[in-house]
């Protein structure tokens, strides 16, 4: 169930260029159903909209959850100024994540781009716990924006790409994918829409799950701000990213 609470910031640090990790404490982590869900944060009481940020890790027993975010505008810039001990107005956990309990994967490929990487970490940890082999491809702009490479390496093999080649392989995540053919049976991806489209085209034929980002309004499924079209023939014709997603099986929505 979604709840709204004032969560305490128990740690907050910069981990890469414009990128921060924040750990929050409260009752909300106990409500998390799957990796891939998000929290909807009201950064300043004078803001008109909350900011959706995916859950990067959680420890429901301890009541903590981790978010990783990048400064992209006024809201995230204000968030970066907050300190340990401060409280944040958080609504969540929202949406439906990666339904790992109903997936029959044995070897998983995770493909993350930029600030789409975070939800894949909590996913990777849970897949690993279920005995599923995890291979990860992470794409970033350049060396300064790389984060969580080591964290993923503890869970399996990792390939890093940067657009300018300043770190890892030069190019995009899709350039690595042909080399990994046959090393996985199911893939999971999160990143910008263009990347998700390219990844799903390259990995056509595999079972895949995509986490989509969009500007949200209410974040609870009521306002229809974040809809995405479903393929022709679908009874409803659309999905709400915040409520039906943000994770969809490939082909369930039009990218």
């Amino acid at each position: 169930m979604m709840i709204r609470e004032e969560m305490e910031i128990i740690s907050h640090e910069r981990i890469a260029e414009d990128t921060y990790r924040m750990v929050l404490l409260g009752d909300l982590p106990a409500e998390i159903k799957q990796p891939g869900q998000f929290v909807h944060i009201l950064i300043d009481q004078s803001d008109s909209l909350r900011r959706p940020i995916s859950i990067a890790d959680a420890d429901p027993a301890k009541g903590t959850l981790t978010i990783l975010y990048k400064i992209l505008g006024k809201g995230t810039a204000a968030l970066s100024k907050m300190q340990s001990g401060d409280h944040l107005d958080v609504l969540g956990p929202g949406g439906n994540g990666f339904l790992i309990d109903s997936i029959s994967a044995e070897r998983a490929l995770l493909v993350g781009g930029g600030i789409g990487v975070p939800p894949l970490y909590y996913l990777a940890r849970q897949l690993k716990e279920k005995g599923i082999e995890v291979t990860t491809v992470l794409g970033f702009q350049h060396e300064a924006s790389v984060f969580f490479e080591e964290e993923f390496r503890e869970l399996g093999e990792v390939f890093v790409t940067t657009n300018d080649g300043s770190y890892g392989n030069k190019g995009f995540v899709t350039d690595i994918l042909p080399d990994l053919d046959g090393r996985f049976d199911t893939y999971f991806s999160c990143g910008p829409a263009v990347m998700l489209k390219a990844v799903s085209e390259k990995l056509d034929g595999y079972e895949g799950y995509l986490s989509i980002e969009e500007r949200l309004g209410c974040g609870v499924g009521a306002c229809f701000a974040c809809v995405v079209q479903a393929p022709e023939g679908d009874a409803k014709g659309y999905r709400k990213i915040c409520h039906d997603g943000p994770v969809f099986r490939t082909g369930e929505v039009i990218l």
Partner: protein
Amino acid sequence: MTKLNLSLPGLDLKNPIMPASGCFGFGKEFSEFYDLSELGAIIIKAATGETRYGNPTPRVAETSAGMLNAIGLQNPGVDRIISDELPYLSNYDTPVIANVAGSTVEEYVEVAEKISQSSTIKALELNISCPNVKEGGVQFGTDAALAAEVTRQVKQASEVPVYVKLSPNVTDIVGMAKAVEKAGADGLSMINTLTGMRLDLQRRKPIIANQTGGLSGPAIKPIAIRMIYQVYQEVDLPIIGMGGIETVDDIIEFLFAGASAVAVGSANFKNPFICKELIDQFPEAMERYGFDQVEEMIGGAHR
């Protein structure tokens, strides 16, 4: 003992606070947060004759003290609203107001006729003020003769009272209100959003895919208060007031200006519990201003 309840055409309200159309879906999502029976009423999302997909995304953008939206009246169409959405709402002890939209007078009439026959629907809110669709919508809300014509025909087709939702995108709001009063409206609902735009400075293009969107939130509250104040003086119809309400003091300001009840819109996005919290806080706020009946507060600024 404070008396929160009041009666308006078609509506027995246990309190004067309700969620605004488009900000509350068909209620189901918010029923996870609190008991919908606590609400004065519920104004559901706009219904059109056929299924509408709405505008491309992005559909929302934050602004100073407000937000822009251009959803484009996405809805499953009147028939599926009646079959799939209204049965759930009938479980609650709260009057439901249906927002009726269309591209043509015929479509408005068709929707009004169908949905007003449902026993769950106690009144219609005639949406002649949506700024985010290419046909219909606000074109009916900015031309007094068209507004009167659609009001007259919907009134004839409807089984329940009709509240006409006025657009603030006009120079003479009193003229519009008088026109729909003369055409037989039972009440007014005001105001809808103001047309606005925000640009993305990197792309040098509008943020919202539809380019323009409807501005809502605290930024438009003074406009709503002014328009309700002016209309209250000239028109003898009850007004459901809306536009940027976030606090109980905002509600009192709307009542004093001339609203009989209020609707809370964008604030539901920021805080999904807002309507319930305002209802809980309202009696104490009434007492603070020396009132024990909502009815005595309506139009308080004009005496």
